[in-house]
């Protein structure tokens, strides 16, 4: 029920952060995440940061999955040139 998008904090001014979402930035409010810092990856919903993204956990999740299931994605069938 909730679209939230990951972004990186570039600047903080008072309660507002300038967040970079992969090339596009938007102001997000930090009222729900007062200890956020510049450089943090956060999840933003409806213009508010709701939680920090734990990069370590993300890497570990993928690492564990890759160990079990292998890291070779199947390329889609290459169409004839």
């Amino acid at each position, binding site marked *: *029920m*909730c*679209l*939230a998008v*990951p972004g*990186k904090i570039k600047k903080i001014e008072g*309660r507002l952060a300038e967040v970079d979402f992969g090339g596009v930035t938007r102001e997000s*409010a930090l*009222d*729900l*995440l*007062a200890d956020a810092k510049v450089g943090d*990856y956060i*999840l933003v*919903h*409806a*213009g*508010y940061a*709701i*939680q*920090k*993204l*734990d*990069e370590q*956990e*993300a890497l*570990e*999740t*993928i690492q564990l*999955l*890759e160990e*079990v*299931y*292998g*890291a*070779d*994605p*199947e390329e889609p069938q290459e169409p004839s040139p």
Partner: protein
Amino acid sequence: MNLDKFSDPGLAKGLLGKIESLVRGDVALMEVCGTHTMAIASSGIRNLLPKALKLLSGPGCPVCVTPTHEVDRAVAFSKLPDVILTTFGDMLRVTGSESSLEQSKAEGAEVRVVYSPRDALTLAREHPDKSIIFVGVGFETTSPTIAATVKEAREKGIINFFVQPAFKLVPEALRAILEMGRVKLAGFLCPGHVSTIIGSRPYEFIPRDYGQPCVIAGFEPVDILEAVAMLLEQIRSGKPRVEIQYRRTVKPEGNPQAVALMEEVFEPCDSEWRAIGMIPQTGLAFRKGYKAFDATKRFPVTLPAPVDPPGCLCGEVMMGIHAPRDCSLFGTGCTPAHPVGPCMVSSEGACAAWYKYGER
């Protein structure tokens, strides 16, 4: 942070294989969250899962479960003089008894779609001569954001900003579904972003009192598949518990700051769910100290008598008792172009997602 691996086809394939090996006979899991319904459909996962595994949509679509009279109230607010009605886009086309916000806008009402409740606050500052009413729909991911906006309004002395409180809470709704006992469920795929706020503890009663496995899942294809595999493992082990698949954002304690803010401004109350009925302690009302922001108190309006569409199976669909295709109106009398019930009106609704993504 590169999250592309959470859509990796190789990992997805591996997880699908694992799921295949774990499915023994028919098993039905409830995916509670509307955003999960959309993610599952848009990634094409449903058709890749073994046929014996069914994913039932739950009541996690805030637009779908907003009662008709609240939609009617928002429409009535929009027609008041000197009011700017602000809303998330999701609510614009939802039909009430007679009209929708989109229809009201076509008739000249000032209705504006906003991305954030703070944008509504900005409008309040820019238009001191008008009353800005924000339609407060959403679950626990959203209600803390409106609580924060209300606090900011108080801080800044903004007195022309109001909220129509129509929020819903998830855990007690799940208890109601389990109590009804009408669905043979084997486990719950719990909402990732609601849980980012409330953590995993509020779901602990589900395995404890009802023996049902719970996994809190993220929204990328690999997240959803890993979560399904985790649920199947729990079923096989016979040891139900609450697990977090979405570890990069959900902590057991959630986001206590957000919860505190929500609890400062709001308190739980009984709430009506569209097509389902009253579920105790599943809504939010303004606390005494913040009642000045309550649009419902400040702007009394006359509402039309609510109309219940005959033949509509939305209530049962949202409780996982029936699939959209079980409804006699699905795809014939009830389509996204001409919707009868809320599940088809909202782009998140179970019926709209099934229709749009061709899951018949």
